[in-house]
């Protein structure tokens, strides 16, 4: 028995060694103790010390991200886009405010508990200044209260759930970047009622908050006089086949279908309906606005499918910004350029812009103030002209404007996404 105890003790000692870098952190002069190190940090939400995460040479930023686990690796390109852009800024623009950007990313395996651990590690060990692009709805939901209580800027949340920016007063430190799924559903609903009045609508959605928000939005956007939802089908992201759902959609007589699905699911939706010889008008969520879709389902099948996006497409290599993005990814990145890496660069650019505006007052509050002030109808390089980002104290939605995209085929038989119609403002929905 006592031997067992010593065994446990020895094991725990390994833990001691495992956190060797804690001391390194403590040895680095970090100025005044920060909120994370205040004993009663939970009782009174103290504003962070000005220097936490900022040294003479570095600005330390962090993120929790699903890097391993079953679903994780699919989103890695976003992260690689952010990271490559920061590397590029450090190497070619001399960093920000005379400091290098250090971007620390901790794996959360897409789990809430993993995110809690990851954030604790980032705050305490890496002494991050701000959270940039934390990924995943459930994972981020477990940590954002904590970040807000501690006063850590929680910028560009990588999830389109409705809640992030719904109440900026309750969560003043959290800023969303991805368009709201609910709003997306609304926009598509309105578009359907305007252009496909009288047609029956089918809904195909992932069985989680993504599908749920989109469906609620769709119902909100559809004009009940003009269109009726005849079938609501859900699928699990892990489903092997969605044919059963597609048959039900077809049999319901739907003529227009909105798919709240991620690329593999959407590709199946489109392929299966083709097999059934059924070709309704498809709308799919903006996560699918990527050239990869033409690989997943052929350009011929994709033709006419409508989605939304606000960024320049990764295959517009004639555009100087995208050409530059390809160069950045080639030189600093580990992954090929795609729309996910473009999104990553957008996040990187916004971060750098905000930090530049904060140089005189490099504090967390200062960063938030900058975020609230400089992004006033801001036109970024990445967004297509007219797509403006607007943030303020009481508006924490990042990208709120998008344009419709329709899939077409170019003269080489390759699939392309073409923007059409007016810019749609999410805020007005």
């Amino acid at each position, binding site marked *: 028995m*006592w031997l*067992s105890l010593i065994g446990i003790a020895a094991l725990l000692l390994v833990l001691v060694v495992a956190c060797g870098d804690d001391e390194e952190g403590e040895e680095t002069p970090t100025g005044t103790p920060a909120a994370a190190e205040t004993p009663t940090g939970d009782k009174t939400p103290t504003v962070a010390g000005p220097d936490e995460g900022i040294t003479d040479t570095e600005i330390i930023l962090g993120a929790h991200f699903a890097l391993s686990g*079953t679903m994780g*690796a699919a989103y890695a390109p976003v992260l690689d886009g952010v990271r490559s852009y920061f590397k590029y800024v450090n190497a070619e623009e001399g960093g920000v405010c005379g400091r290098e950007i250090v971007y620390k990313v901790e794996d959360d395996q897409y789990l*809430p508990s993993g995110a809690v651990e990851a954030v604790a590690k980032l705050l305490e060990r890496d002494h991050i200044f701000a959270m940039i692009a934390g990924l995943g709805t459930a994972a981020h939901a477990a940590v954002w*209260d904590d970040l807000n209580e501690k006063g850590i800027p929680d910028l560009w949340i990588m999830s389109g759930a409705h809640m992030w920016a719904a109440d900026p007063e309750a969560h003043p430190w959290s800023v969303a970047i991805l368009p709201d799924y609910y709003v997306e559903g609304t926009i598509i609903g309105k578009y359907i009622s305007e252009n496909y009045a009288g047609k029956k609508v089918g809904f195909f959605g992932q069985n*989680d908050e993504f599908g*749920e928000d989109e469906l609620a939005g769709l119902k909100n956007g559809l004009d009940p006089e003009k269109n009726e939802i005849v079938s609501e089908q859900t699928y699990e992201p892990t489903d092997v086949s969605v044919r059963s759902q597609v048959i039900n959609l077809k049999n319901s007589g739907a003529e227009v279908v909105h798919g709240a699905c991620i690329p593999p699911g959407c590709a199946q939706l489109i392929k299966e309906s083709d097999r059934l010889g059924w070709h309704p008008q498809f709308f799919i969520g903006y996560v699918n606005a990527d050239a990869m879709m033409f690989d997943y389902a052929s350009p011929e099948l994709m033709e006419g499918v409508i989605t939304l996006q606000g960024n320049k497409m990764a295959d517009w290599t004639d555009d100087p910004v995208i050409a530059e993005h390809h160069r950045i990814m080639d030189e600093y990145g580990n992954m090929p350029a795609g729309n996910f890496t473009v999104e990553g660069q957008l996040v990187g650019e916004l971060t750098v812009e905000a930090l530049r505006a904060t140089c005189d007052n490099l504090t967390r509050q200062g960063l938030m103030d900058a975020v609230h002030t400089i992004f006033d109808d801001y036109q970024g390089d990445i967004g297509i002209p007219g797509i403006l980002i607007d943030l303020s104290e009481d508006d924490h939605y990042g990208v709120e404007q998008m344009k419709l995209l329709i899939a077409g085929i170019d003269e080489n038989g390759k699939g392309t996404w073409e923007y059409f119609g007016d810019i749609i403002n999410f805020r007005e929905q």
Partner: protein
Amino acid sequence: MRLSSPLLLRILGFAFLAFFLIYWLPFSHALPDGLPMRFGTYRTIQASIACVWVLVALGLNILTGYNGQISLGHTAFVATGGYTAAILMADHGWPFWAVLIPAAVVSGALGLAVGIPALRLSGPYLAMATMALALAAPQVLKKYDGLTHGTQGISVRGDWSTAPGFIGDMVTQDQWSYFVALFLAVVMTLIAWNVIRGRVGRAFVAIRDSEVAAASMGINVPRYKTIAFAISAIFAGIAGAAYVQIVGYIAPESFNVLRSINFLTTIVVGGLASILGSILGAISFKMVDDISDFLPLGEGPMAEQVPWALYGGLLIVVVTIMPYGMAGAIRRFQMWLAFRKPSERRVALGGPALGIVAAIAVSELAGGSLGIIVGLVVALAITYSLWLPALVRGATRGYGRWVGALRGSRGPPGFVTSEDASDERSDAER
């Protein structure tokens, strides 16, 4: 009373453990500057979650290790306990201490309900049936969202979960959660101990070894098998409540089937039918997260995959060279020790104990991680000089098995088993 050296060591061990768990681990920031404290919030949270896994592993080990019933559905029980706790706390304003009993009861009731059909199943059939629970749990939680808040999840923050009164002024929320989890882990370990040592535990083991023989001894086999499920689920339910207290949020995605399967890995690696094994398995499983800290992997997008690939390899090696888990390896070492001369034994045990004390002392005096490393090196040097022959023998033995297996059909499976088993048994008899 004369203090014999093993007793002294035992007291020292307990004292160290208590010091480590109660003072060293959580209180890094609550104390004045200058004291060399090693741990902070991150380790505290990690340790808290390790406590939760310890709770689950204890329960699963009672079911699988002691009663021989396999379960791949324990996340369903954890989720049941967690959701019961979260709903009562967030929607009905119950304090944490009050939700423990309902969490245990609801989860235990589900365990009972599962235990009855499980009576007819065994082996992979039972594994499948229980896995079905883990598969179904997220769907059920999402579908009936009136109670469970559906895909939104439940956020549990506020007065229900914070420390009462004056304690709240002394510790942070994370530390408080840790003490709660630690307390639960300790209490439930003692309860598990009692269950196993008692009449019920003996019945479990008898049923595992032979249902027919157990029945002929007058043991009500169906009753005890169902009880095992219920007890196991109670442990998982309490773990779920502790999880909610620590993470402050629960959602259908909080647990998945893979996590369920990992629980099984935990207890096999730790040691089946061993309380110590459950604890070791859960802690070491938590430590896998730290593999990446030790490896110079850089920042490549795939850097995170390397540790998990290594983890897979490690799993294979550990299970191969330690067929009875970490607890079994320790037992083996104890056997080995029993045949040493007393002087050697003292060094072999005193070495690590001394090293640990030295490590604490040096680090307190000198500060920094240097002290701990020096202390550990001393301890390891003294100890390994004695363990070395045994280690080498163990390692080559493992290698021999590998070579023998590679060679082809020389090592007949049936026979290697019985030979090895008898080897193992005779070790135990000594």
